């Protein structure tokens, strides 16, 4: 099932909303995997000159003792440095907030940013932590057993999947 969301128009809207942050000379950091795809497009549209950073939060997940190692850990890359910088953290879907919690923890192992804002392509219900996005592409209301997933990396598309059995965070 595909939700009725025009991704290009959504990205254009996010780009406009992010322009107000440009005077701070922000650095952009995408969260693997979908967040990096979204960040690549925003980074280009905004014409940011610092290289795009990438975070893989696998080593910071709060369910590691339960589900174990992610077999496809990608390397985090924050070679640009984030000390005293204004960071735009980008993810594809903001759901429970646990990914963002993990990403913030990892970010602070690389340095002390001046500020962090969150930009999410999709914001859905189901928050389990007090985390909000400052820039949101689109809102989605889904049933508890439904998950929305970004397909990429070339032509971005959204898929809604219904999960039977236990719903994982």
């Amino acid at each position, binding site marked *: 099932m595909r939700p009725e969301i025009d991704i290009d128009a959504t990205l254009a809207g996010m780009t406009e909303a992010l322009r107000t942050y440009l005077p701070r000379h922000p650095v952009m950091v995408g969260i693997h995997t979908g967040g990096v795809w979204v960040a690549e497009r925003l980074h280009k549209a905004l014409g940011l000159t610092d290289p795009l950073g990438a975070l893989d939060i696998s080593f910071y997940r709060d369910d*590691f*003792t339960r*589900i174990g190692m992610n077999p496809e850990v990608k390397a985090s890359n924050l070679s640009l440095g984030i000390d005293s910088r204004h960071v735009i953290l980008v993810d594809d879907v903001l759901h429970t907030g646990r990914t963002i919690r993990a990403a913030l923890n990892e970010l602070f192992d690389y340095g002390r940013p001046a500020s962090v804002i969150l930009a999410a392509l999709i914001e859905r219900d189901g928050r389990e932590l007090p985390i909000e996005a400052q820039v949101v592409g689109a809102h989605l209301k889904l049933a508890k057993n439904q998950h929305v997933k970004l397909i990429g990396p070339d032509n971005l598309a959204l898929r809604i999947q219904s999960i039977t059995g236990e719903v994982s965070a």
Partner: protein
Amino acid sequence: MTKGIQFDASGKLTHLLTLEGLSRQALVEILDTAESFIAVGEREIKKVPLLRGHTVVNLFFEPSTRTRTTFEIAAKRLSADVINLGVSTSSTTKGETLLDTVRNLEAMRTDLFVVRHAESGAAHLIAQHVPKHVHIINAGDGRHAHPTQGLLDVFTIRRHKGAFEKLKVALIGDILHSRVARSDIHALNTLGVKELRVIAPKTLLPTAVEKLGVVPYTDIEAGLDDVDVVMMLRIQRERMQGAHIPSEQEYFRVYGLTPDKLACAKPDAIVLHPGPMNRGLEIDSTVADGPRSLILPQVTYGIAVRMAVMALILGGREEPLGRRA
């Protein structure tokens, strides 16, 4: 010795005792996981919170600096708490048995033992007697196995030489006494190297060594011909009873890895050594410190490999020690 004990009912690695019997898929999973930990070691803050609240005990009944230190660093970079118990400080000197020592440490609610022991099979023995939530990593048992060394050796080869199928590999030196050689041989054969040779005087080759899936050579120049990877082994003077080598000078003359002998290998061949090196006995300093030597990168990679093994063993457990009711 059983290999089944290394996996739990769901097929997940629960102890690492030997590389014998580990599938290619299991080895590749460990190597891939290790690769992702390399970046952590290159950061300014070299620590991730994966094993926070877990306790790792380094239980060393045999002296070691490099292996114990790299296990300790690996555990600390995963945020585990680490306790080091050396033989000189242990109560085994007061007559306590190996299993009593382990049971007492278990009672302190520890999660993982890294065990080194001079007796082959010591880590297996412990693994057979610990409860399900306690895990064992063998850090070297007698002449039997040193699985994390084998893993870091193949990790080094993969990183610098790529696909195993194309590679000719030679192991040189004290094959007879070497647990590293045994672990290397199991891993390299499982990963499917093109050709695996062992080079040593007859006195340092086990009988029927061919059965391990290697081609033996007593002539080092013939054995090194056209190889991509040269893996040196340490001459283990402490394990030699009787005359295995005529004299150190004679051994170095015939089997010591010098630039002249290395010239028989491929021009881009890499040189590995598990340390500690006996310079001027099995390896010449010019080679050890030369551009083809990966001896120090091996140490760096060893940390990532040990992080991977610990994370794979302790991650994904339904009832971690800290959360058990």
